[in-house]
């Protein structure tokens, strides 16, 4: 699959991939390294991609595999600990604290308490807006598995945010 506009397609995908990678890894800095490494792999292997490969699916999949493997771009390995600590502080605090009773970095923290399987299912479906079928392709598991991970993941996240699932007492936001 040699596409002259591959880099342009990739540029357009970067914002979504960064969001996904940040959600998986718990930090935009980590996430950006995952995205960068995935981009480099794609550009190296672009000739071996199948014609029907969806670029976004391929990227989601590679980013997730890289995250699971703990592979990080050289650039971050070389950074000193202070910088890593600094960038690990996510910019996820709502600009308007009245938006929600739960500070948004608490959502991030709660996500990191989930298993990777739950977290990736939540990111792909709830944030990235993939269908169950698309998520199943990215995660390379049957749709039933995706559904199961999603249901359990959502419950676990609600629990981590301090609510009581199904009780209706979860105080996730007064606006609702």
């Amino acid at each position, binding site marked *: 699959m040699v596409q002259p506009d591959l*880099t342009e397609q990739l540029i357009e995908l970067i914002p979504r991939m960064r969001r996904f990678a940040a959600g998986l890894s718990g930090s935009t800095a980590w996430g*950006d390294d995952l995205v960068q490494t995935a981009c480099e792999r794609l550009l190296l292997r672009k000739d071996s991609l199948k014609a029907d490969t969806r670029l976004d699916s391929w990227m989601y999949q590679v980013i997730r595999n890289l995250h699971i493997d703990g592979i990080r771009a050289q650039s971050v390995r070389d950074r000193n600990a202070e910088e890593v600590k600094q960038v690990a502080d996510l910019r*996820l605090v709502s600009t308007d604290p009245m938006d929600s009773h739960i500070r948004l970095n608490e959502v991030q923290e709660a996500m990191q308490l989930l298993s990777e399987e739950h977290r990736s299912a939540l990111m792909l479906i709830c944030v990235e807006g993939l*269908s169950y079928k698309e998520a199943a392709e990215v995660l390379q598991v049957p749709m039933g598995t995706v559904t199961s991970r999603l249901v359990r993941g959502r419950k676990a996240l609600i629990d981590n945010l301090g609510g009581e699932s199904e009780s209706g007492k979860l105080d996730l936001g007064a606006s*609702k």
Partner: protein
Amino acid sequence: MNDEQRELINAFNDGQLDEKEREIVRELLAENAQARAYLDELAEVDSLLRTAFDPIEQEPVPARFKALLQKKRSHAFSHYVVPAALAASLLLAVVLVIRQDTIDQQMQEQLLQMRQEIASLKHQTLENTPSGKAVSWVAPVGQTRAEVTPLATFRTKDNRFCREYEERLEDANGVEIRRGVACRTGKGHWPDLTKLPSGSASSTAVEKSAVVNL
């Protein structure tokens, strides 16, 4: 609620059901407050997740990705880019050479003009200025400055009218002082004695001792 109902409500929330399945969920929601609360929780947690992560997607693409992807792109088109760059640099070199030539030519012209001015100064000074009095000339541009001072006047045995003089040339490189002897060959024309044919110059020089200072 059982697991199957929870999955249905999740799929309902995520828009993954067909119309028949949606109707089943609607009935469940209508009769089951716990199901309604559960759906509310799902919508709420989704909203939180999007609010938490969407700002990252809204950020402009960081420079590192643009650099990475544009670098690769220029790789792909290197066959075109490199000759273009080479051609551009060659063009630049040609332009620079021409420019340098132009500069050299201009400097040559200026230098030539200054030499003519200084030569003219010498001729005029030797023609009109008494010995011991300096006449100077300053170039209109730059730091070049010339001064000619006739030192002595004498007549040779063959009745040529000659003057010893000192020429002081000053420019950015420093000061050069030169002494010479020039003999009049016509009005306002005082070629240097050393420029005369060697035979006559040597004989004139020899005869200099016999000249009478005027």
